[in-house]
């Protein structure tokens, strides 16, 4: 026993490893390098990109996607998908819009009710997945379709229109607008609060994933569900909580959208669910679950946002937008992978 413990100090079975290499092996580093590369590329290519004004724009567009990407990444680490996440952003926004502009509910109450609705949907998703044993891809696809229909049809039925109008005239609009929709003036550019929310969400998610029991369980249920069940991880509880997380993030983003643009339309968020998954995967999450990081997902969203806006700044033929986006994404992911492999092989 003693013989074994003392051998830890210097082990001939491990080759030396520089601190740099050790840093490079963190899962986020590949995405970070790729993000820096994209930034440098557009900063050099265009004038506005690296200015405060430019940054405020691409940060803003990355922020809402980023919040969702982080939540979706957690869920993916836990081995599930939520295709209703995109529609949820529209749903919560519409709910608040309808409740305030048409039913005259106090704005904060409406916000609270929409949060409860979102969480209830999250729980419903989770319970259905657990109870039926169906893949979450299918269950949440069902929820997605239902939400999409509800978004259009209910909004239309209640308001007679397919978008919320007159939101800014609602009493006390200023208060939630300050919390969700305002912008700070930083160095000439405006920093939207959505960016701050994004940072907070990423930090909390990272804390939860790496430092708490819940985080341990998330990695476990995604990595090997049967095994984790066997050692006593509360699989159902963990997964339902994860579905609530994406639903809650959907609510947050719904509020951010509603109070930044002061309107939501019934097709808000439709089709975005895959963007979130894409950002998470670009940031290093495995589609099969059990591996990934919140910071990586946030960086994935940053890459996506920067590329999207960067192409506009560069003034490239807009018809090619998607083609450029595809090539840039591929290059970013390849760079990411290359960095990681380098790090793994480094001696």
């Amino acid at each position, binding site marked *: 026993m003693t013989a074994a413990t003392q051998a830890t100090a210097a082990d001939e079975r491990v080759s030396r490893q520089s601190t740099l290499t050790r840093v490079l092996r963190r899962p986020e580093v590949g995405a970070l390098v790729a993000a820096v590369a994209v930034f440098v590329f557009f900063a050099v290519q265009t004038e506005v990109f690296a200015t405060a004004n430019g940054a405020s724009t691409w940060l803003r567009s990355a922020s809402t996607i980023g919040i969702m990407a982080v939540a979706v990444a957690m869920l993916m680490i836990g081995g599930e998908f939520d295709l209703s996440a995109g529609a949820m952003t529209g749903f919560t926004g519409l709910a608040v819009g309808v409740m305030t502009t048409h039913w005259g509910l106090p704005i904060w109450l409406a916000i609270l009710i929409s949060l409860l609705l979102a969480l209830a949907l999250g729980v419903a998703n989770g319970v259905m997945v657990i109870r039926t044993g169906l893949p979450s891809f299918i269950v949440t696809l069902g929820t997605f379709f239902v939400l999409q229909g509800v978004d259009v049809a209910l909004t239309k039925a209640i308001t007679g229109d*397919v978008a919320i109008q007159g939101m800014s005239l609602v009493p006390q609009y200023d208060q939630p607008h300050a919390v969700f929709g305002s912008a700070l003036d930083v160095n000439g550019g405006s920093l939207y609060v959505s960016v701050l929310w994004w940072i907070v969400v990423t930090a909390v998610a990272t804390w939860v994933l790496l430092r708490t029991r819940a985080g341990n369980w998330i990695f476990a249920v995604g990595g090997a569900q049967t095994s984790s069940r066997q050692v006593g991880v509360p699989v159902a509880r963990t997964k339902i909580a994860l579905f609530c997380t994406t639903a809650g993030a959907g609510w947050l983003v719904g509020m951010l959208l509603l109070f930044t*643009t002061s*309107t939501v339309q019934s097709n808000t968020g439709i089709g975005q669910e895959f963007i979130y998954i894409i950002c998470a995967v670009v940031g290093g999450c495995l589609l099969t679950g059990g591996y990934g990081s919140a910071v990586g997902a946030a960086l994935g969203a940053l890459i996506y946002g920067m590329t999207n806006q960067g192409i*506009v700044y560069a003034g490239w033929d807009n018809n090619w937008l998607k083609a450029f986006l595809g090539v840039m994404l591929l290059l970013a992911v390849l760079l990411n992978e290359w960095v990681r492999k380098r790090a793994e092989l480094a001696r």
Partner: protein
Amino acid sequence: ACGGTGQPSGAKDATSLNLKYAVITHGAAGDAFWDRVKSGAERAGKDYGVKISYSSDADVAKQSQLIDSAVADKVDGIVVSMANPDGLKSSVEKAVAAGIPVVTINSGIDQWKQFGAITHIGQSEDIAGAAAGDRLKQAGLTNVICVIHESGNVGLEQRCSAAAKSFGAKMTNLQVDGTDDNAVQSTITSKLQADKTIDGVLTLGGQYAIDAVSAVQQANSKAKVATFDLSDDVIKDIESGSIIFAVDQQPYVQGYLGVTALYLKDINGNDIGGGQPVYSGPAFITKDNAAQVEKFAKQGTR
């Protein structure tokens, strides 16, 4: 729903005819423009006591299948928008051959006759686009972006290209992700920041005009915003001067008149237009006449 009260008493009673019309468009679900077409058609159906079934698909192959379905369903008339006439040709002709009267609305002004429709109502995206382009020219703009909120949508592309033609000066298309308003605002802002000489933004939906107005403020640009289609918020912005005009294609009219044309054909053998297309617009909403339409925009019919 059709209780029979308040119906116009025609040569024949509609309820006894038990008519059923299909309205099949290429609009996406939740699109404000097509929502008004739908409202118009449904209102007409209610007014005449006719059953209306509205369906739509932006994919031309699926739209043609919807027409086939309606034919199989033996409806009494079909209202169809033909954004991509080639793809609908065989289906429309099949409907005509089956003895079902067809009315085309919105687009398809060059083909309706050839395909055997009884009339065409509305004006093509081309005409509306051209009119918008003219207006922009009159406003003295020189560098305008045309915001396409759905990539590859034929109707949107037609609006932009027609506007570009009649506008004469520089007009570039900008693709945005229409399902993410945050991204729409950011992208328009980016474009305005990247090219300071842009002095006009033309959006193709009321919703995106609101986004464009915020983006213009955000980018500290002096660009003027103009848009297709109306909404309550758009009217308010027109009144406050942040949108210079809105092109109103009067989609409600297209839906309503489309059904009316079928109805008149059925009860009275009328051919509206007498072999010529009927224009439904475009109307321009500016500061001067915004107040008049505000009420209707609020109720979602303009």
